[in-house]
């Protein structure tokens, strides 16, 4: 099928890209690609809630930011040789990515559980807005959280380490992020074809039906929301590591909006939709930036043309509608 072809092309492109960049002596292109891959990961996370779960969350920056702060807090303590907490038991900071990832995933999953339990009482636009509300609460909290820099955020000077890799080398860090993305995509593919995926899909379309066969749609959706939040949280940790910096802007509603734009732009409920969306958006941002001081106008116009003429997102445009997941 054509969408299968699109996925394959994307995959090959992502893997081959750094080789091209190295050959063309464009090292920054690798960093840019890393950014795209990480944002894609965040969007893949959102897509699970939004695309398959039908949960349009405008608060995913919360998880992105929590992941980011997990990295910022742990690494800044490790960097300053100050313990994270001494009572009731001693917790030290760390500069090890695997540990940071674990913390980021757990923390954002926990947050998603709490936010999800309350938000899932509502549906539709109300759900959009209540998730936004929780996102904004965390945003304002982070702004005034002086212990970790408030609006200025937390800087770490050197990227964290991953066993067996030199993360300071752009290609190696790119490879690591791509690995994570592909792993998560594989997980995503498995989940949507699993019994859980089937039930989640039905819960989006007809919660009453799901209920009458003896399943609880809200619990299915909550599980999807938690999974989604955890993945976006992981992306947040990587993003913070890419920038060696975390600040409340990672928690802002604009960030939530951008992640959502990636998903819609690429095509909702398509495995590679968010990846296409993020890659295209980052590429546009990069290539239009030099065009004019007012390049946002052109970005806007392009996006507008895409929505008007590409039903079902860019993947839909290329691969045709229907089929999909």
């Amino acid at each position, binding site marked *: 099928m054509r969408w299968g072809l699109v996925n394959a092309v994307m995959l090959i492109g992502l893997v081959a890209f750094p080789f091209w960049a190295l050959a063309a002596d464009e090292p920054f292109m690798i960093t840019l690609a890393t950014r795209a891959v990480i944002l894609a990961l965040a969007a893949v996370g959102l897509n699970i809630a939004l695309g398959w779960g039908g949960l349009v969350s405008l608060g995913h920056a919360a998880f992105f930011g929590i992941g980011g702060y997990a990295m910022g807090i742990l690494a800044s303590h490790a960097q300053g040789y100050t313990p994270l907490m001494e009572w009731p038991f001693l917790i030290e900071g760390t500069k090890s990515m695997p540990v940071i990832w674990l913390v980021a995933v757990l923390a954002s999953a926990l947050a998603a559980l709490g936010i999800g339990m309350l938000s899932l009482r509502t549906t539709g636009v109300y759900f959009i807005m209540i998730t936004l509300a929780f996102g904004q609460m965390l945003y304002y909290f982070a702004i005034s959280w002086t212990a970790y820099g408030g609006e200025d955020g937390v800087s770490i000077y050197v990227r964290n380490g991953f066993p067996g890799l030199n993360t300071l080398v752009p290609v190696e860090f790119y490879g690591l992020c791509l690995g994570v993305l592909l792993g998560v995509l594989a997980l995503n593919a498995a989940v949507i074809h699993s019994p859980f995926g089937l039930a989640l899909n039905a819960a989006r379309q007809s919660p009453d039906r799901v209920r009458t*066969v003896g399943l609880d749609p809200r619990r299915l959706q909550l599980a999807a929301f938690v999974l989604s939040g955890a993945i976006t949280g992981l992306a947040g940790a990587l993003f913070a590591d890419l920038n060696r910096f975390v600040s409340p802007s990672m928690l802002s509603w604009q960030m939530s909006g951008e992640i959502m734009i990636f998903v819609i732009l690429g095509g909702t409920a398509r495995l590679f939709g968010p990846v296409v969306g993020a890659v295209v958006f980052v590429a546009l941002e990069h290539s239009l930036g030099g065009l004019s001081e007012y390049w946002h106008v052109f970005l806007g116009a392009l996006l507008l043309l895409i929505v008007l003429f590409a039903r079902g997102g860019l993947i839909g445009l290329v691969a045709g509608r229907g089929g999909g997941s």
Partner: protein
Amino acid sequence: MTVLAAHGLVKSFGALRASDGVSLDLRAGEIHAVIGPNGAGKSTLIAQLCGSLIPDSGTVEAFGADVTALSVPARARLGLARTFQISALAMEDTVLANALLGALGARGSAWRFFRPVMRDKALRETAEDALERVGLADAATTRTADLSHGQRRQLEVAIALTMAPKAFVMDEPMAGLGAEGSKTLTAFLDGLRAEAPILLVEHDMDAVFALADRISVLVAGRIIATGTTAEIRANTDVRRAYLGEDA
């Protein structure tokens, strides 16, 4: 033996008493039809029996236990299968996927994240059997939204079948079916009562008189009569309030 029963159900929407002390029971092996004018509270009664509405007072009993406090899924897991007055289906999915959902529900859990559902033989068999029985086997890979109205009603029944329930509750399964469709479905339901009793809400009097072992007449939230087909046909109140035939 009583399979499902309502005891003195009261449910108000604001000033309107949609159920005003409704008591009724469904016995093993029977089809019990509930008829009554539009807005009499039939769907409201079904919603309370299945758990999607909580009664203001009164109790619901299923399979010998008080289930008034149980949720819809919990009652479904006990063996209560419902079809909707307005089809509630996963429209973007295939017909088979909808049936698989029922089978999944019957199994009691959807918490499996990795094994592709299509490769689960047991599930597929249950689902395909049910489709076969209602005559939808050929449409298994059709998108549900592309089904005709009548086929959707058949799918509703098929999903109920996948659950191998101990009682069916059906809200106007014939609505919108043409004469032919009604005849087929009537014959099918006739056979189904051997598997599990059916509480049937229906306006199609031909079907009701052909199928029902007992009939209850609900008017303005109250049961005004319960009896055999012959008794109801003869009841002048019913004729005046509902059938519109000269008494």
